[in-house]
């Protein structure tokens, strides 16, 4: 394909790049002719896409299928208050083009799946993984290896971040670092455990730096290394990551030649809720109205209980349950809830194994706030 030249207006805009010999007009032209796919337009995707756009990456693709929620704005700075309730993709595109009208933004309003990932990745030079779940992370990894695209990887949890470049020819992939995902429910998601709003700003920005370096072919990519960021300690650590000679996807003896079923790989097909009895928040309301006899157990953390609670509930955080379940009357009917229903499902499983009559509340206190009592804050 013919290389696009820089226009006069672009030369003025990118002046601070052009005067650095490491970038210069040739490098800036590389950026203009390059493409990056941002998987997710959330916490990591926000600063990532903004900086790629500002830097003049010619074609930026975004995969997402969500709408902007008010609780996103604490960290997803590509969106704003006016975009609440609208498509994340449209909101992101508007902002990116307002920042830099010389680039093009391609929107892929879909869930990334085993069926579409490879074809999609082939259209881009670099993939930047800013998703929020293990199934998609393994899919992004495998599709990157299969298409030969480098993955500027970032991941966040509460006050900590991870950063690496995976999938370079001689470098390791994400499976070399973590061969298998944790079982579902063991590692809480950011929606459950929270995340410092600025943290994705740090990690997503670093992903943008790695993406630019890969395009420009300058410096040393963060391949074969994992950087850990600890915001509380304000420290970075760099660890070595070796290529696994038996890696099922990136080694010479690879057995995975096409994307697999990642939901099954991550154990998501055996959802604990399948075998765990649950009731809806409407059922719970009816039981309360009828003054039925039961104990309402809240397994969230004390600070969450302070933000929002259902009157009359007993607080025993999930992590304390193994030592405190004896406080509960064994003959009583237990109705267990958390924020969204995930932790309480684990609690119900635990309590049933201990011989209790326990039932989960599907959707947790968030569903309660949404459908029953809007005066209970959502968080």
């Amino acid at each position, binding site marked *: 394909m013919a290389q696009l030249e820089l226009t006069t207006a672009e030369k003025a805009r990118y002046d601070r790049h052009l005067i650095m010999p490491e970038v210069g007009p040739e490098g800036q032209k590389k950026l203009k002719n390059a493409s990056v796919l941002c998987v997710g337009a959330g916490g990591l995707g926000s600063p990532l896409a903004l900086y790629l756009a500002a830097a003049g990456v010619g074609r930026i693709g975004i995969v997402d299928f969500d709408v902007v929620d008010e609780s996103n704005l604490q960290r*997803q700075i590509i969106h704003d208050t006016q975009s609440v309730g609208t498509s994340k993709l449209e909101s992101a595109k508007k902002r990116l083009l307002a920042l830099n009208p010389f680039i093009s933004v391609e929107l892929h309003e879909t869930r990334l799946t085993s069926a579409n990932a490879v074809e999609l990745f082939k259209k881009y030079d670099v993939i930047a993984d800013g998703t*929020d779940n293990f199934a998609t992370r393994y899919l992004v990894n495998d599709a990157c290896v299969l298409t030969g695209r480098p993955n500027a990887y970032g991941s966040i949890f509460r006050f900590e971040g991870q950063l690496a470049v995976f999938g370079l020819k001689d470098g390791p992939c994400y499976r070399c670092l*973590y061969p298998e*995902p*944790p079982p579902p429910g063991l590692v809480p998601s950011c929606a459950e455990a929270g995340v410092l709003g600025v943290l994705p700003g740090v990690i997503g920005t670093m992903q943008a730096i790695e993406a630019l370096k890969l395009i420009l072919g300058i410096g040393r990519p963060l391949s074969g290394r994992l950087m850990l960021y600890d915001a509380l300690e304000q420290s970075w650590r760099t660890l*070595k990551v070796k290529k696994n000679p038996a890696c099922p996807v990136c080694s010479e003896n690879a057995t995975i030649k096409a994307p697999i079923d990642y939901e099954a790989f991550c154990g998501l097909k055996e959802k604990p809720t399948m075998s765990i009895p649950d009731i809806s928040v409407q059922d719970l309301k009816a039981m309360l109205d009828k003054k039925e006899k039961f104990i309402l157990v809240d397994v969230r953390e004390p600070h969450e209980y302070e933000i929002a609670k259902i009157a009359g509930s007993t607080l025993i955080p999930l*992590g304390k349950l193994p030592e405190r379940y004896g406080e509960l009357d064994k003959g009583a009917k237990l109705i267990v809830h958390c924020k969204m229903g995930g932790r309480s499902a684990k609690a119900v499983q635990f309590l049933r194994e201990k011989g209790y009559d326990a039932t989960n509340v599907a959707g947790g206190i968030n569903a309660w706030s949404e459908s029953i009592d809007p005066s209970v804050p959502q968080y």
Partner: protein
Amino acid sequence: MSIEIRLPTALRAFADKQEKIGVDAGTVGEALEQMFSKHERLRQQLMSADGKLRSFVNVYVNDDDARDKQGLATAVKDGDTILIVPAIAGGR
């Protein structure tokens, strides 16, 4: 206590909120056992039922992955730091 085990925030709840734990040990496995003797609930987080490190938890001695060395049998010496790094997936 000459070897320091550092825990990520996600696991500190299982260790009375401590971020580091001092131990005296000759191998990674011994160091972890000493830690479990003080904080038993960490065992289930890090080890599978058959006594192996879980595959989504990496243990580093300084900046080397113990899996690339001798795993739990990897030798440790005074002044080493053992770092526990579980997989995280957040991004939105």
